[in-house]
């Protein structure tokens, strides 16, 4: 080969093809997706997925910052493809519309830990989440998830007695006499975020299985 300009042109055109196909086309097809309106039994219209607010939104920042995405996916594969739905990670497959509020979208590529698409529905107990984050060995013996002691404060029990939000720790994990472990604001926000992870709503392109008997019915909007 001797022709530099021909080489230049070929190099640019080949990449341009996939830029149009895999960047521009997805942007045209999915970039304008909106939440789906649904009317409940008493006629109130809500939009799904719902935008996260307040502490749950702040918690998403901790989820990003602490790199939870490297072990936990947030995508349920369709029934019959992998064991996602059989494991109870979600009642329906995930679709693009589920992510319209997420920045960044954290689908994840690894399941060193379980999928969290629907963790808010599967486990809503605050105490469980705090204890699990403080030290996963307490709630899930044998887990390879790291403990997050820096999301908690170990402090002397004040004159008013044990704080209402102190973790209930026993045995080898107890902080010692006169001490208590309480969640920091970061832990509280992170748990609010985890509790907000739910895919329990219907979408026209991904309805919940009928047996679930959900009160919310979807209105198909094209």
């Amino acid at each position: 080969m001797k022709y530099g300009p021909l080489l230049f042109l070929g190099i640019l055109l080949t990449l341009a093809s996939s830029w149009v196909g895999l960047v521009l086309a997805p942007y045209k097809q999915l970039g304008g997706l909106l939440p789906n309106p649904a009317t409940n039994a008493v006629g109130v219209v809500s939009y799904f997925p719902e935008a996260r607010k307040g502490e749950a939104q702040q918690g998403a920042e901790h989820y990003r910052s602490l790199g939870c995405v490297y072990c936990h996916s947030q995508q349920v594969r369709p029934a019959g493809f992998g064991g996602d739905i059989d494991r109870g990670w979600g009642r329906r497959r995930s679709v693009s519309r589920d992510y319209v509020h997420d920045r960044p979208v954290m689908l994840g590529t690894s399941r060193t830990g379980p999928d969290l698409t629907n963790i808010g529905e599967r486990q809503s107990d605050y105490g469980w989440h705090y204890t699990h984050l403080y030290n996963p060995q307490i709630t899930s013996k044998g887990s390879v998830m790291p403990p997050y002691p820096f999301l908690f404060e170990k402090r002397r029990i004040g004159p008013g007695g044990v704080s209402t939000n102190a973790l209930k720790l026993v045995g080898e994990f107890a902080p010692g006499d006169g001490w208590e472990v309480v969640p920091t604001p970061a832990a509280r926000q992170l748990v609010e975020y985890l509790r907000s992870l739910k895919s329990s709503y219907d979408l026209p392109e991904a309805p919940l299985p009928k047996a679930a008997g959900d009160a919310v019915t979807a209105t198909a909007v094209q």
Partner: protein
Amino acid sequence: MPGELADEGQRRAMLAEIDSSCRAPVLFFVISGLAWLLLGTLLALVTSIKLHSPGFLAGWDFLTFGRVRPAHLNAVIYGFASQTGIAVTIWLMCRLCRVPLISGGLIILAAIFWNVGLTIGLIGILAGDSTAIEWLELPGYSTPILFFSYALVAVWSIITFRLRRESHLYVSQWYLLGAILWFPWLYATAQIMLILEPVRGTVQAAINWWFAHNVLGLWFTPIGLAAIYYFIPKVIGRPIHSYYLSVLGFWSLALFYNWNGLHHLIGGPMPAWMITVSVVASVMMLIPVITVAINHHFTMVGHFGKLRYSPTLRFVVVGALCYTATSLQGVANSLRSYSEIVHFTHHTIAHAHLGLYGFFTMVMFGSLYYIIPRISGREWPSLGLISIHFWGCFLGLVLYVVPLSYGGILQGLAMNDATVPFMKVVEGTLPWLKLRTFAGLLMALGHVAFVGNLVWLLARVFGPYRKPVVAILSGTETPAIAGK
């Protein structure tokens, strides 16, 4: 004949002039790259240990798994692999264009900016500013510095290309030019559409994997292949097996590789056509992969004995074999039926290391064994350290990739069987993860031996005691390149 001898003398004088012009700029990129390699290796070991011993260094947020892991990735990708790749690109460009390096100061300035930008970005990741977008974790305030640095290198490369004194374009130059022009397009698209002005929803995922797969396919792969195409014929002294296969291999890679990325989203919340297009393109990769494999391996046939004497050849040939292996594994991974099993497992991590370590890193090590004696005028001081480097990296690689690939398949099969409790799946991965830490220690040993040897060599270059060059280790300087 006297005439030929004079030509040969002129040719050697020109090569010597080109090599010495490359000394400071190329060495600067190499030394920075290797410093990041050592740091990246340390971060890798910490990451690996944490995955089977989660209590290890768990008390600080900046050392938690989810921060050390992206820090490792970015240190080795942008610190080591990219900088070493740029160093090799610069030297190959000068050699193949037959022009001494121009504006060395500009290259050094680019290297300084690259390292400053990366240091800021890596501290950002450890401090919690990671974007959590895989392969693009560096925070938005550090990446413009990297982009500026890269622009200097790219402009320099294109000017050098324009100044070339050799009208024939060797296959390595096609690949290098591809890498130089593809990377800024990929990086700018990803930075703008994911970090500066994020697009909505799963469009992010599409762009993320279009970018991440192409960083491998259109940045590291072409540089690695360019080096293989250059060094195998150089060291063994015979031309590449087939010119026409080189053409087919290059253009089929350019056509198909850049459509592969969305196979990373198989099973995910994307329209089926996007995934299918990428699966088809991934299978089409068989054409460039088999073409390049025939071309590289058939060139080597009958010359395997030379592996004993040339470290360059040993590393580069292992790299070429790993390229074939990782590409075929990649085609398998992109099939829906196979991806269903291995997609979310450690199998993917093993695959990534077969590509970036087995192929790219090994080829870069081999290239440096050839380049550094020529630009510094000194031979490698220790044969023993070269052996430790090769065997540490090679055994580490095998012990990393083979068991973890297998363990990943077992993990995927167990995970897809909902009757197996999740904690059992986790327990099943532990032996493979512990073996991986051991493999990482072997690689680390290799890296330390290599850097030790280089420091020793540089001490001779810049120290008071200077020995004449003896070119025994790096192979002969023969003009055997296809088409010449």
